[in-house]
């Protein structure tokens, strides 16, 4: 009796498998690892094809043998006891040797690929330092001398050598379309390199953190723009410059004389400083000379545009969006850059905006003690917060207001007045109002 039913069930299984194939075929796979877009992925895909072929052969063989056996040797009523066997040395040796031979077929290209992909990168490669933070990516271009975050530009056709470190827990750096992953570990420097094909100029790829790193592990993404070498140079040249509106670099007499004094200012400025107005915003520098290449937003396919919805429920962040149109970048600049506001607007105690918070002609904080993404050319990026939000005014405003609600576990504190701050387990009674936030957003979006 169970036989009939099981047949019906197995045909249902086949139907479902068919439905699965059909459903899956209608979809696009923008993060597929089966690409030949880099030398690295070409090697891996070659290995994969062999693994898949041999694996399929073994699978088909074993499962066929199994099904054949259970059908052929199923019990028949009244049949005598089967012929008894206890073992067979020849057979045992055969099914030891054949798998071993199959494994040799895998081992040889594997070892070859290990040594090829883990060789030293060529000296002419472009160097990128990747630094993992909870939960965003810092990218430094030491050959060009600038730092950016969450969005990576690579010149197509040139080998890029990533040097990987972490400032906190273990992360893992992965762009599925371009190559394998490599863990990003504190107290340890890892490398991974690949060469994006020169035909890739003008494409964008998703990147992910693939080592569980805490609350917002899922929110630690990044984007890779492959661009033409000329566009890359234009972009890099611009990224090196100081931020828009930043004071002209000169000895700044008004600023505290030593970094130590500046830190004192920082720690003293916990309450809103009344004499803020006494130090007017420094003269605004002209916009940087070059406009610099930016990957056009219009060329980003939908799967690269973040879709993280606004938080809901008790994490909802309300913001009066009508204020955004009236946001004033200059006022925002004053709020962010005047050390007197540090208590309520502590942006630059963690972020760097090159040219701001200068002490004796030097940046008060450096890349090595900055705890948050470098914002110097923030407005050239299309995403923020670990690549999970598009850099639109509505998103940015809510982020500034209550980052902790916008991204679980976010180490950026809640700044909006009256907002609940999960890390402090209480509602803020001071902080920014919506109008000030609109100004800050306007300023951030002026950081071209």
């Amino acid at each position, binding site marked *: *009796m169970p036989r009939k039913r099981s047949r019906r069930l197995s045909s249902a299984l086949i139907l479902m498998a068919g439905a699965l194939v059909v459903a899956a075929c209608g979809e696009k796979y923008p993060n597929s690892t089966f690409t030949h877009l880099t030398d690295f992925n070409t090697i891996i895909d070659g290995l994969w094809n062999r693994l898949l072929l041999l694996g399929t052969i073994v699978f088909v063989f074993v499962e066929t043998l199994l099904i054949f056996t259970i059908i052929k040797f199923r019990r028949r009523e009244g049949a005598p006891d089967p012929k008894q066997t206890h073992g067979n040395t020849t057979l045992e040796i055969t099914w030891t040797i054949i798998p071993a031979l199959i494994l040799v077929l895998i081992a040889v290209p*594997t070892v070859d690929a290990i040594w090829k992909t883990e060789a030293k990168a060529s000296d002419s490669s472009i160097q990128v330092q990747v630094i993992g933070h909870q939960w965003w990516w810092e990218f430094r271009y030491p050959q060009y001398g600038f730092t950016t975050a969450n969005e990576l530009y690579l010149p197509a056709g040139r080998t890029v050598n990533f040097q990987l470190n972490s400032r906190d827990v273990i992360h893992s750096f992965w762009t599925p379309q371009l190559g394998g992953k490599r863990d990003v570990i504190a107290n*340890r420097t890892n490398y991974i390199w690949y060469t994006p094909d020169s035909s890739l100029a003008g494409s964008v790829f998703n990147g992910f953190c693939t080592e569980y790193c805490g609350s917002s592990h899922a929110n630690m993404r990044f984007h890779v723009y492959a661009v033409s070498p000329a566009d890359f140079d234009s972009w890099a040249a611009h990224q090196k410059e100081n931020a828009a509106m930043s004071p002209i670099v000169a000895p700044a007499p008004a600023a505290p004389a030593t970094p130590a004094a500046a830190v004192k200012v920082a720690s003293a400025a916990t309450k809103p400083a009344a004499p803020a107005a006494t130090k007017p915003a420094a003269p605004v520098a002209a916009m940087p000379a070059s406009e610099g290449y930016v990957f056009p937003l219009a060329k980003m396919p939908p799967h690269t545009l973040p879709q993280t919805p606004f938080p809901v429920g008790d994490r909802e962040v309300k913001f009066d969006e009508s204020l955004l149109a009236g946001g004033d970048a200059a006022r925002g600049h004053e709020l962010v850059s005047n050390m007197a506001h540090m208590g309520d607007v502590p942006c630059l105690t963690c972020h760097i905006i090159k040219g701001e918070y200068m002490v004796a002609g030097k940046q008060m904080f450096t890349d090595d003690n900055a705890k948050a993404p470098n914002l110097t050319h923030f407005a050239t990026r299309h995403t923020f917060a670990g690549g999970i939000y598009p850099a639109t005014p509505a998103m940015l405003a809510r982020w500034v207001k209550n980052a902790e609600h916008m991204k679980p576990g976010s180490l950026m504190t809640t700044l909006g007045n009256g907002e609940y701050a999960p890390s402090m387990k209480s509602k803020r009674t001071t902080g920014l109002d919506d109008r000030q936030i609109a100004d800050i957003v306007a300023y951030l979006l002026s950081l071209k």
Partner: protein
Amino acid sequence: MATTAATPSYEQTGIWSWITTVDHKRIGALYLYTALFFFMFGGLEAGVIRWQLAQPNQHIVSAELYNQLFTMHGTTMIFLAVMPLSAAFFNFLIPLQIGARDVAFPRLNAFSYWVYVLGGTFMTLPIFFNTAPNGGWFGYAPLTTLPFSSGLNIDFWVMGLQILGISSLAAAFNFITTIINMRAPGMTLMRMPVFTWMSFVVQFLLVLAFPVITIALVFLLFDRFFGTNFYEIAAGADPLLWQHLFWVFGHPEVYILILPAFGLVSEILPTFSRKPLFGYNVVVYSGIMIGFLGFGVWAHHMFAVGMGATADTIFALTTMLIGIPTGVKIFNWIATMWGGQIRFTAAMKFAIGLIALFTIGGISGVMHSSPPADLQQTDTYFVVAHFHYVLFGGSIMGIFGGIYFYYPKITGRYMSEVLGTWHFWCTFIAMNLTFFPMHFSGMLGMPRRIYTYDAGQGWDTFNLISSIGTGLLILSTLIFVVNFLKSRKSGEVAPGDAWGAGTLEWTIPSPPPDYNFAEIPFVTSRYPLWDLKHPERTSGIAHSAPDVMTITDAHATPVHEEMGHKTAAELGIPMPFNTVKPLIAAAALVAMFGGLLFMHTNQFAVAMTITIGSASLFVGTLYAWLTSPLE
């Protein structure tokens, strides 16, 4: 013979008799019920996980709760479900299979169980207060150190695993001694049933692997509570220390989870094929090989950490090597069925299901063994697919098979074959529906352990199918639960030799009497009961009787089917006294660890009072235990 209704299995009844029991069969049953409970709890956790991931950007649970759920799903399934389910079989079966009246240390056995159930509760309860462990079942430092996980979550995990480790180690010493020392005359090592053999290998893995994680956890505990620097990045610690220690334990752990299922299958297949196991020696040696090689492959979990080409090469090759003994087992199982008279009972279906599904997990395992290819696979859903084919398709299928097979021996009644067939096909289909699409979502770029994802990444359909499969999997487990509970009352009554099997446990009544064997049998071959009933099946294997001295020494008699239902007292067999001391000792041990938690709530005095008080209670109980007679 089947006319005798299943009698109450034990001479004593009542809750107190269960709390104080030292009978290996009752402890086995307790393990079984408790572990099935945790299995369902872990399954529900998986259900919430899949609900959250069914569609992109959902808000079923928060990121924080999701991370607790996937951590606890892994921890529960490994330490609180599959390992104890195996332990249920170790307890129930090993003494019966080797012809012993109990395990070597019955009270230690009760202690292991109570430590497990209290430790499991200790780790599971916090999920209801949103403070469950949230560092992953692998608990990678430095994420689990105080600077990055300041809550009590990780404390529950560290303490919980430490407690469970004590349970596993105590049980392992017990079973090693039992298997080495309590075998009936003539039960030579190479005549032991394969389940006992695989269990024997597992006990060695436990004994050698658990101390390593104990130390890794001690370091973490010291870091969190006493300010040491083992995983402190600022002090120059190497974050890979944890990973090496963890995986030196963690890989053998995989074999700890799978080998008992292999053993169960090796009992089921011959019985329902009416043929002895094909290549017994090879199956046993390959089990030993797997256990041995299992200690030399740990770093294949770490191909992405940048160990360097030499280490990657070595671990790739050792990993590939371990595929050979595993493959050999599969071929021997198929050869066992070849030429047989296969009876498709529910147990047999699950055993065949294991072969079919484990093969898939084995093949994807070989795919990870190639480090460059693994760099695209590790930490993606491809790996999730792989180890669920190994642990669900392997361990769980084998254990379900074992439950259907041994249920009549445990309870004296058969489980319903109709419901069993439904259960099998639902599980088989749902399992593939859940886990097969994960191969695709992984290779198409979906990372593991993410609580949310954007639409249009190429993962939507696969995730939806996986989630539907999980729903079906929960339903099919419900069929099992109904069957399990219903059959207890109304199942068909089973005789001692419920299935026509060949090993010693089937020579005694179902359920077995307290003393197991009224007379200790002496064994002359691998299938003593077949010698008796189907001598033609065992004519091809070696027979020899143990020497007369040994037989006299053990007061052994030839193998025979025991039918009687006399009490131990009537037969003059001394039975161990019931005692509550193991439970008290276990409770004291758990309280001793639990007390430390108060240190993180800044109640140092409370912490020390509880910890030192419980420690004293533990030592006192231990003395009382050791100075009171066993029987």
